[in-house]
């Protein structure tokens, strides 16, 4: 997938808001990556607090969580709390959510005071002593979080990787473009591999933001290092309409680009992004995915007539019917 450089974001006051092209990528693929945006000192402090006082010495995952669940660096928060009220000053997570690139990204997707749903620290034990520490040395099945969710509004899930993740560490696997499929949690577990699936490999301090519906699962950690992942789910508290830096947004161009018999000279990066097919799309449902993306595009642009390549306009033409 394309990696987002935080410098690409556009200033919204002292924040860095997403661009229209980044929003189109999120609509189309259900994921954006922000590599290495959390400073190393903050990553180190976060990990140090998690490992205190016993470090990574536990023999089993349940023993590790028995310690971690009492760790004050990840506070207990009631669902429904406004994000600005979740973390006290001085907490690592408070400092991470105060980073301009993080604030701008959250604001662009779910507003500046989104609703906290839950958070969790995921730990995957390293393989070096895995046989002693766990009997479940397998990857996690693909799944969609929560349960069937037919909303047009969407929650986001932020994945914070405080340490560098190598391929051997089994970073989160995800299926780009799967977020608009309405399935029931682990009902998709049968799908072991899908063409175009990606595995998180990233530098320390990387953030990935998922649409709530993105299919994903944890990989098997075959390294000797324990892997930490902090995840938080946030919901909108207002319509998610034009919350990003939308100064370049055009939803109804004067001359829409020709379709099928296309014009190679017609450049439209946002339309290209919205219409980019994933390699796993079936021939027919891939077109339905485009239609569902465009419905989501209409929601976030606030334009009920927005379209690309005539997909919605064609099927909405009811002239001639009584």
């Amino acid at each position, binding site marked *: 997938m394309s990696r987002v450089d935080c410098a690409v974001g556009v200033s919204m006051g002292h924040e860095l808001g997403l661009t229209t092209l980044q929003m189109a990528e999120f609509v189309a693929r259900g994921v954006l990556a922000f590599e290495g945006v959390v400073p190393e000192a903050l990553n180190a402090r976060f990990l140090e607090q998690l490992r205190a006082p016993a470090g990574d010495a536990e023999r089993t995952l349940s023993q590790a969580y028995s310690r971690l669940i009492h760790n004050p660096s990840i506070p207990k928060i009631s669902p429904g709390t406004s994000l600005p009220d979740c973390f006290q000053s001085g907490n690592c997570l408070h400092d991470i959510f105060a980073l301009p690139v993080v604030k701008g990204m959250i604001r662009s997707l779910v507003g500046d005071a989104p609703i906290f749903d839950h958070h969790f620290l995921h730990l995957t034990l390293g393989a070096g002593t895995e046989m002693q520490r766990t009997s479940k040395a397998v990857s996690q099945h693909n799944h969609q979080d929560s349960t069937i969710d037919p909303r047009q509004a969407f929650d986001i899930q932020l994945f914070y990787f405080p340490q560098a993740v190598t391929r051997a560490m089994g970073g989160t696997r995800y299926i780009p473009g799967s977020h608009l499929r309405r399935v029931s949690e682990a009902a998709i577990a049968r*799908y072991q*591999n899908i*063409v175009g699936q990606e595995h998180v490999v990233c530098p320390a301090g990387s953030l990935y933001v998922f649409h709530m519906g993105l299919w994903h*699962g944890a990989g098997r950690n075959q390294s000797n290092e324990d892997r930490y992942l902090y995840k938080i789910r946030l919901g909108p508290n207002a319509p998610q309409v034009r919350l990003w830096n939308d100064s370049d947004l055009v939803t109804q161009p004067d001359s829409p680009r020709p379709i099928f018999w296309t014009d190679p000279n017609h450049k439209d990066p946002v339309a290209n992004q919205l219409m980019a097919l994933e390699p*796993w799309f*079936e021939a027919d449902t891939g077109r339905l995915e485009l239609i*569902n993306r465009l419905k989501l595009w209409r929601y976030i642009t606030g334009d009920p007539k927005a379209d690309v390549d005539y997909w919605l306009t064609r099927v909405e033409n009811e002239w001639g019917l009584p």
Partner: protein
Amino acid sequence: MAARQKVLVLYLATSALDTPVVGWAQYDGFGDSKPMTGDEDVPPYKTGVDALRDGWRLIQASPLVSHVSGEEFRTDYLKYEFFFEQWYSIEPKL
């Protein structure tokens, strides 16, 4: 002679067996491999027909289902699922 089953599930781009594989899963009742989620990024076959030519026996194909009125644009599970099997003989335990 006892036997054990291996199962291959292919998800194709259309309802036709000669179209590309977009997803797959394998289960090994014989026990000499342990396939799991995310373990391969390249499909074992390009198409369903390629699996047939390699000796897999088709045992089930997903039916074509009419679209529910009002839900024509809904997408959910992978649509074109094909189950294949192979059987392997094993030596009886003495």
